[in-house]
């Protein structure tokens, strides 16, 4: 446990994520809590007292909207990516380990998914299911599954052929045990890398969906939505899109650092260099 704190990437990434999560959770205490009421006389105010991040086109406080928007964006990012990672990893490892017809059928289904642009599959799922936050997770998470599937499958294929899986079979381990104990721990570092980059993609996907009208229903803000609204006034008042973009960037950076750090921590060969 002590050694985990010696990994700078984990510490910096973790602190960053923790700060953002705290800000988002404490939103009712540190903002006015009013993210939706229109105040036209005060539109496009520059950052200043009362409005630390300024106001947008409708005169709404950007600081409040960003903190409340984080609730949607963060939970969508975490839940959708987790959903994709868990499903993709399980399907990928099972597909690769058993091979044959199972692998072929799963592979073709994934090919179909991959042949659509991600946004299009998101829209299709969004249309089929009723609009809600849960639908949001599904419509962003499901199109990400092939990413994890492909990565897990190819790595499982190579690890399955390594001596220690054969040795484990010869010691009487069953297929489940081999996948869980011997293959997945060796694929995990690769999953973490994809995980942290998928996280950023999911936050942005949510904003694209919001832009197309398939996101979280108005007036609830999300980071993507705030960026999109601010985009039209990028030159008059850059703070709206700018601050929301900054939060997205910091979150993605935090998860990337955390992911890389954990990957190094889990690798026994690298971990020793921190001891």
């Amino acid at each position, binding site marked *: 446990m002590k050694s985990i704190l010696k990994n700078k990437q984990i510490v910096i990434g973790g602190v960053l994520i923790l700060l953002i999560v705290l800000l988002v959770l404490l939103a009712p205490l540190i903002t006015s809590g009013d993210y939706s009421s229109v105040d036209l006389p005060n539109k496009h105010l520059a950052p200043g007292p009362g409005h630390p991040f300024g106001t947008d086109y409708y005169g709404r406080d950007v600081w409040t909207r960003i903190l409340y928007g984080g609730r949607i964006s963060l939970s969508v990012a975490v839940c959708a990516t987790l959903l994709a990672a868990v499903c993709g990893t399980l399907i990928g490892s099972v597909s690769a380990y058993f091979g044959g017809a199972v692998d072929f059928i799963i592979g073709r289904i994934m090919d179909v998914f991959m042949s659509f642009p991600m946004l299009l599959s998101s829209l299709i799922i969004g249309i089929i299911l009723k609009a809600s936050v849960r639908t949001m997770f599904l419509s962003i998470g499901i199109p990400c599954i092939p990413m994890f599937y492909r990565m897990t499958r190819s790595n499982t294929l190579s690890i399955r052929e390594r*001596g*220690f899986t054969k*040795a*484990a*079979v*010869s*010691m*009487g381990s*069953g297929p489940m045990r081999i996948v869980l104990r011997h293959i997945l721990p060796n694929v995990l570092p690769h999953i973490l890398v994809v995980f942290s980059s998928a996280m950023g993609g999911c936050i942005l996907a949510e904003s694209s969906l919001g832009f197309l009208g398939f996101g979280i229903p108005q007036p609830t803000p999300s980071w993507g939505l705030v960026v999109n609204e601010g985009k039209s006034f990028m030159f008059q008042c850059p703070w709206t899109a700018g601050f929301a973009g900054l939060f997205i960037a910091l979150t993605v950076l935090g998860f990337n650092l955390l992911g890389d750090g954990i990957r190094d921590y889990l690798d*026994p060969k690298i971990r020793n260099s921190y001891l």
Partner: protein
Amino acid sequence: MAENKMLRIKDLRVVFPVGGKQIHAVNGVSVDLAPGEALGVIGESGCGKSVTFSSVLKLIQSPPAMISGDIELNGRSIMDLPEKEMQKIRGKEVSMIFQEPMRCLNPVEKIGVQIAESLRLHEGMTMKQALNRAVELLKMVEMPDAEQRIGCYPHQLSGGLRQRAMIAIALACSPKLLIADEPTTALDVTIQSQIIRLIQKLRKETGMGIVFISHDMGVVASLVDRIAVFYAGQIVEQGNTRDIFRNPLHPYTAGLIKCIPRLDTESRRLYTIRGSTPNLTTIPEGCCFAPRCPYATETCRTVKPEQTAFPGGRSCACHHAASLN
């Protein structure tokens, strides 16, 4: 007679279909092993020795491989045993050690946990009990600082220590038969002799049977009671170690013995058997060694030699076995 055999392989044939062709990796191998006996298996690369004994644990995927013949463990045929039953045999009754100790250990798991795995699997031990036993096992395989080493990852150990750890894993559940598939090939000579001495010692202590697969006659000589010489997926000669070395019946065996470098002769050039191993996609009509054999006659090329018994429990598949000496 069948009762006192621990392992009995009868007319085993393994065929791998590869790209429209068929590779006859094992062509009718019959061999058996009494409890506690040590059998040396000798042959060149690709002669079917590993495939034969991997079949004992059913490690060969079938299909695609086509396996026929019969394998009995303690009088029970394993050919039709379901996978679940095989899992109980693997590691518990029969276990195996492999050639490359680097690749056969999981790089992200501590040595102790890997040894504990089969104890928890087969003996139902808790992690704590299993780890305590792991320390004992590491002491048994003469691993220095066993208490500290169970917390090591494979990359922190040297090649010899890794092979010791592999042996500890294989011996965890005190199997009655240990199949050692070229366990010393990847190690340098001094470590090789240490490992062989260790296996000798463990055999004395546990009384387990050993199948020692190697392509090095010298390595096997000191370790085993009996030798089976493989060539092109068949056993060409079988007999007691001493008899085989003193008086090889098959020209191939004689050639192999001649290949061992000796310190007591003047010759500078090492002996080689001319030619190379046959292509296993077709089974030759006559003796499979005939194309390389210095004594081959017309009969050898057209008629397949049968396994014939010789005094002293030996057998040999050669038309001229009796006359060559």
